């Protein structure tokens, strides 16, 4: 009668063999190559690199292939690889003012030095399914008109323009001088969290979670009056200073998207009225996430700016503890692990409670 639960090992092996088969799909369809993923699924690769905290498009593409396109699973694969890597050095801060800009827009000024550059964007496309794309083998699209060569040199950041007139808070705080930057991948989260730690957490955070939180601030849950001061996307150089050299050398370029929100602030007892900042920076082309991050960053500054903390997006324990999709997906899905010991103890309890309740009813009836 009793079927022994032995056989876990075989079951696991067979499950993984099935997964490999499903991953490949119909063998008569050509296998997806990493180059195809890297070149034609760039937003997916960018998201996986950003939330996986590892800038490597080849590994990002591999993770996506291995995860059959499940991006959160791909993020997990990349994170588990990242954690084994040695730390050879710490980069200098990247200078986004020096970016090779491919896209730059400001919602606060109609025109500004360097101008508005739309770049490659889904914005203003009509979301009509393009059935022409379904027919494969079309000729490559005609190259768009190139932007002027010297574009990058003429492109100061909008917030720097505001800072020149003292209208926005200074970017460097008084406590930023020791240059020690928190790292939540090495040390456990501690509260209250500094802005460096919060920004690191947000940069790795699940895009959907940040999007919903940012959206909630726009609908009144901790409103912070944002303007998209500037969004820019392009390539920045990463530099390190090897100890034996003593000066900075470039080790490569990375694509990033930066969003600087400019937020209204009426001043406090110690601060004059001025604009405040919300900051978002993510790997690759992830504008939606950079903007959400900037909204949430500004919300999390409520305590520092003397604003009342009333909404989830302003609550750093709530946001920072729940933003990481690798942590969240693991714990949510651990519910499918066996819990029959605990469930049995609940069964014992609920049966006892029901017996007692029935006895009380009988007593009352008599």
């Amino acid at each position, binding site marked *: *009668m*009793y079927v022994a*639960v*032995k*056989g*876990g*090992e075989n*079951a*696991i092996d067979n499950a993984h063999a099935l997964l490999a088969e499903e991953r490949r799909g119909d063998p008569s369809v050509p296998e997806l190559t990493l180059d195809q993923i890297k070149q034609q699924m760039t937003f997916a690769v960018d998201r996986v690199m950003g939330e996986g905290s590892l800038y490597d498009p080849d590994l990002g593409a591999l993770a996506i292939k291995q995860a059959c396109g499940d991006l959160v699973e791909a993020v*997990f694969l990349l*994170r*588990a690889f*990242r*954690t*084994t890597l*040695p730390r050879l050095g710490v980069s200098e801060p990247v200078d986004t003012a020096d970016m090779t800009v491919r896209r730059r827009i400001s919602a606060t000024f109609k025109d500004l030095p360097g101008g508005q550059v739309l770049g490659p964007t889904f914005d203003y496309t009509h979301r009509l399914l393009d059935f022409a794309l379904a027919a494969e083998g079309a000729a490559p699209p005609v190259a768009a008109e190139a932007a002027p060569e010297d574009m990058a040199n003429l492109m100061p950041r909008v917030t720097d323009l505001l800072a020149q007139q003292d209208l926005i808070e200074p970017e460097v705080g008084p406590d930023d001088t020791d240059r020690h930057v928190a790292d939540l*991948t*090495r*040390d*456990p*989260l*501690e*509260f*209250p969290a500094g802005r460096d730690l919060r920004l690191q957490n947000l940069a790795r955070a699940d895009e959907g979670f940040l999007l919903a939180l940012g959206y909630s601030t726009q609908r009144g849950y901790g409103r912070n009056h944002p303007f998209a001061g500037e969004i820019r996307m392009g390539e920045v150089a990463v530099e390190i200073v090897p100890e034996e050299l003593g000066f900075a050398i470039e080790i490569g370029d990375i694509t990033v998207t930066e969003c600087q929100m400019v937020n209204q602030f009426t001043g406090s007892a110690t601060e004059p009225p001025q604009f405040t900042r919300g900051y978002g920076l993510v790997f690759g082309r992830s504008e939606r996430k950079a903007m959400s991050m900037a909204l949430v960053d500004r919300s999390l500054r409520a305590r520092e700016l003397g604003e009342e903390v009333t909404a989830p997006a302003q609550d750093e*324990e709530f946001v920072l*503890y729940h933003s990481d999709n*690798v*942590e969240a*997906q*693991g*714990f*949510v*899905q*651990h519910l499918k*692990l*066996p*819990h*029959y*010991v*605990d469930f*049995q*103890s*609940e*069964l*014992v*309890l609920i049966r*006892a*409670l029901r017996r*007692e309740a029935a006895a009380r009813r009988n007593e009352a009836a008599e």
Partner: protein
Amino acid sequence: MTAPRTSPSQDDGYNFAYLDEQTKRMIRRAILKAVAVPGHQVPFGSREMPLPYGWGTGGIQVTASIIGLKDVLKVIDQGADDTTNAVSIRRFFAKTAGVATTEKTDEATIIQTRHRIPEMGLGDDQIIVYQVPIPEPLRWLEPRETETRKMHGLADYGVMHVKLYEDIAKYGHIETSYDYPVLVNDRYLTAPSPIPKFDNPKMHGMGALQLFGAGREKRIYAIPPFTRVASLDFEDHPFEVQAWDQSCAICGADDSYLDEVITDDQGGSMFVCSDTDYCQRRVAAGHKGAGDA
């Protein structure tokens, strides 16, 4: 029964037991601190593991930091060695550390567990490593870490006593049947991890070192050997453990924690030991249950 003890060879692609030595040292420091302050949750720089958070990453990191070549590892989930996640974790260490593994409780030097303490008493030459999902016993009463740390600092556990009292006032019983809070060394309120309260008395004065790892929550805590561990209760409502009217259908044990197995859709069920090693030993010793057809 033949001993299912095996010694696979280590995979050369990884450092011994997966974690790099720096990380292991950091974790061992946290463990030492945890042993020095029994029941106190020590924050540590938990790493991302190739297994998901919530699936034993804390326990795995603790085990990886203390395991040596001569250790013999047993991994159980729900008391059983052959549940899928226990198999997966045991394979992980067999692959990355090449250590011997066993299903026999008394052969193991390290036992990593989820949700149970073996029925067989553990000795002072053993270490039991618990996988912990939520290390904070006050979490359901106070969601904020900043607040609960304060409460621990002040040993202010009134809120938990009030919760237990309210249970009794409402239901006539304390409604917590697993992860039942304990006071360690008369000082720190501690989560025993989601073991059934049936296992709580085994924690008291246990010969083995008890280590608790919570990977996602980045906390380690410990109960040193022979430490006082008291389950919270009231003088007029003393702590009680679960009891069954049935005994194990396979080995006839009436002193072990039983799992209920549904046998048909007519309400039929049978009860078997959750601790598979304990059950097999009894069968080997000639004990028989009523339902083992």
